[in-house]
């Protein structure tokens, strides 16, 4: 089990951490709509395994911030049932690794009820879970399975990578009539950023160009966006101008943005913390080849996790995961 992380002593500057942005989003949702309630293991008294829901029990009470027994299938299924009855539940599954216990409820009920019932039933539910590796939690606590969920029609899948998206994606997700899988990369909770005061809501259908460039397009999502930006910075030093596209939504994919970008740069590197075989990066590469084949000046490169259970030892884990250095090397290869 993960140790509880204390909220960072808050410097006086105006930055916000990814965790604080998520909490503000949750508080807004609970305060503005009494159909919304939060349910999950240790979300109440403990304040959330990663501290996201700290203080919400005291503010909204045990009915609307509900600690559950360790029964993922039951409380995720209960979330689906409550959504069927018109509530707007936010269910927290501690990490994507434990979501495997609720996969049947998510796939066979949440994603499928609308179609099977000929459109009569909808499941307006948000399921949040932490994902990804990088904190030496070893194989069973370090999976990155967003690609599995992005394979399922009937689900929307989001991967907020910035504090603005962490702050505002939840309200848009709650407005969606269908189940939304909301992935928070574990390494981002303490990352700080400044909230853009001009942004009050975000759309969920468009990828975002986080950095414009002309020589190569680097496509990434969630925890890998910061690594892609770091690589782009290093490449700029070598005179290679990299454009970084943050997918933001993994289903439906916003082809227009990343394919459009490749159409201008003629080279692409896709970064994905999932294992290469059958990963989301494979889907993205095939869409680039299908829609922009005659724009490609080199094969698309993919930087993914090594196909191994994530090891515990720090140096081994680092070797297994996509890193900025690997992205830089891939960008050089497509350019050469």
């Amino acid at each position, binding site marked *: 089990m993960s140790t509880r992380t204390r909220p960072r002593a808050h410097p006086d500057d105006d930055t916000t951490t990814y965790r604080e942005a998520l909490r503000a989003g949750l508080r807004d949702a609970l305060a503005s709509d009494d159909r919304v309630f939060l349910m999950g293991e240790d979300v109440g008294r403990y304040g959330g395994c990663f501290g996201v829901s700290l203080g919400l029990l005291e503010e909204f009470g045990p009915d609307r911030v509900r600690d559950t027994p360790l029964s993922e299938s039951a409380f995720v299924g209960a979330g689906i049932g409550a959504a069927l009855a018109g509530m707007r539940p936010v269910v927290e599954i501690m990490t994507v690794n434990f979501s495997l216990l609720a996969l049947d409820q998510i796939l066979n009920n949440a994603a499928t009820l609308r179609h099977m019932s000929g459109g009569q039933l909808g499941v307006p539910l948000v399921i949040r879970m932490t994902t990804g590796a990088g904190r030496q939690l070893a194989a069973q606590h370090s999976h990155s399975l967003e690609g599995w969920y992005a394979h399922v029609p009937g689900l929307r899948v989001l991967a907020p990578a910035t504090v603005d998206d962490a702050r505002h994606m939840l309200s848009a997700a709650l407005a969606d009539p269908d189940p939304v899988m909301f992935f928070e990369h574990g390494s981002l909770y303490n990352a700080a950023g400044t909230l853009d005061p001009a942004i009050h809501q975000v759309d969920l259908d468009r990828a975002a160009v986080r950095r414009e460039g002309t020589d190569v397009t680097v496509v990434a999502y969630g925890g890998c966006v910061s690594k892609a930006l770091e690589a782009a910075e290093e490449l700029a030093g070598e005179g290679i101008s990299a454009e970084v596209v943050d997918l933001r939504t993994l289903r439906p994919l916003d*082809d227009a943005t990343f394919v459009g970008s490749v159409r201008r740069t*003629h080279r692409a590197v896709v970064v994905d913390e999932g294992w290469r075989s059958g990963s989301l990066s494979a889907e993205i590469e095939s*869409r680039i*080849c*299908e*829609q922009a*084949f*005659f*724009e*490609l*000046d*080199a*094969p698309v490169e993919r930087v993914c996790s090594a196909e191994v259970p994530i090891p515990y030892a720090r140096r081994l884990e680092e070797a297994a995961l996509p890193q900025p250095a690997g992205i830089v090397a891939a960008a050089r*290869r497509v350019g*050469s």
Partner: protein
Amino acid sequence: MAEFTMPSLGADMDEGTLSQWLVHPGDQVARGDVVAVVETDKSAIEVECFESGTVDTLLVDEGTTVPVGTPLARIGTTAGSEPTADRPPSTPLVRRLAQDRHVDLAAVHGSGPGGRITRADVEHAEPAPAPAPAHDRTAGPAESTRTATGRQPGTEPARQKRNDSRPQERTAPATGPPGPVAGVDSAGERQAPRRVRSSPLARRLATELGVDLAEVTGTGRGGAVRADDVRSAAAAEGAPRPAVPNAARAATARLMSRSKREIPHFYLSTTVDMAAALEWMRARNRELPLSTGLVPAALLLKAVALAARKVPELNGHWVDDGFVPAEEVRLGVAVSLRGGGLAAPSLAHADTLSVDEVMAALKDLVGRARGGRLRASETADPSLTVTNLGEQGVEAVFGVVYPPQVALVGLGRIVERPVAVDGLLGVRPVVTATLSADHRAADGATGARLLSTMDRVLQQPEEL
């Protein structure tokens, strides 16, 4: 007389073996009684019958395998369960078969006992005309993925015209590049004999810039030719035009020089007030969706067409030292191609088309001309050509007549000009219309009549 047929006992069962009869001719059976044992690939299953009555004849011996629905026995049914008279007697299975094959049972003659329609009757019957097969739009993922050959290498980068929803047939134009299409063979060194390893982008640029890939040294991985290699090869060639000159450019050059040699040109020009026409057009566009909106060119073209009908002397061809008037007004529309060259597809019966039809035809013609997909019929000799519809920002155009035609109307850009209107100074949108004509066929007065007719019709845009 009812039939007991081989039942379907599972989602994937299409035949069964009758392993054992539990009743014999003369036995009484009631609805739901088990009458036989059927062997499927899964196991032996006791099978019940849905008719009550006396077993008449067993049609299938024990141990034989028959498809689902085959009659196994005939049962003399007691009066109560005779099928209602109005519906041709048939078993549920036969009714289902008929439904699958769109066969109307009422029209089928039942060859079975008591006029019952059997499986064979349905199989031989003519299916009723099936409703038009529903257009199946489920091909591929939800949004239609544009095929990889979004753009044929070697053609002008064709602009996708949205003027008709029919996917446009994309035929390789005459100027398509010879030579095999090669992609970077990352799988390994296995290469077809003459194949050149090059990136798709390099291949596209090579055809656009007229560079022969075989002569380019590749600096990419494994010697693959990349875009930069092609660009530097094209630049290195410098002055001498590439081996394959742009065909369209060459054709236009020849035509122009012949025109200047043979035709004694005279030129007229006039200024046409476009306020009324533009006012009418904008009002009309406001009610219509953008896709069917009009542009000034459509109004001008129609005006020229009407004028050509009114002045037949300029609407025809100079052949063997004589003027031959054309039977219809076939307007040639000069279209500048990207990357140089001109094409002049013609708009048949231009004078009879409504402004909307002219607009649609114009969009279609220009689109296909630039995509290199003009049909032969459309490039047949126009009776009069209109050029440079104010696009390139030039105010007045004095074009060169296309032999064997005898006239060419040139239209400049629509510009705001201070104009005296009823003695008062006003600012009006105007266009300069010019006429280049063959003095052998007509004189200035005829030319002037054409331009003034154009001017007059443009003042009543509703009649266009």
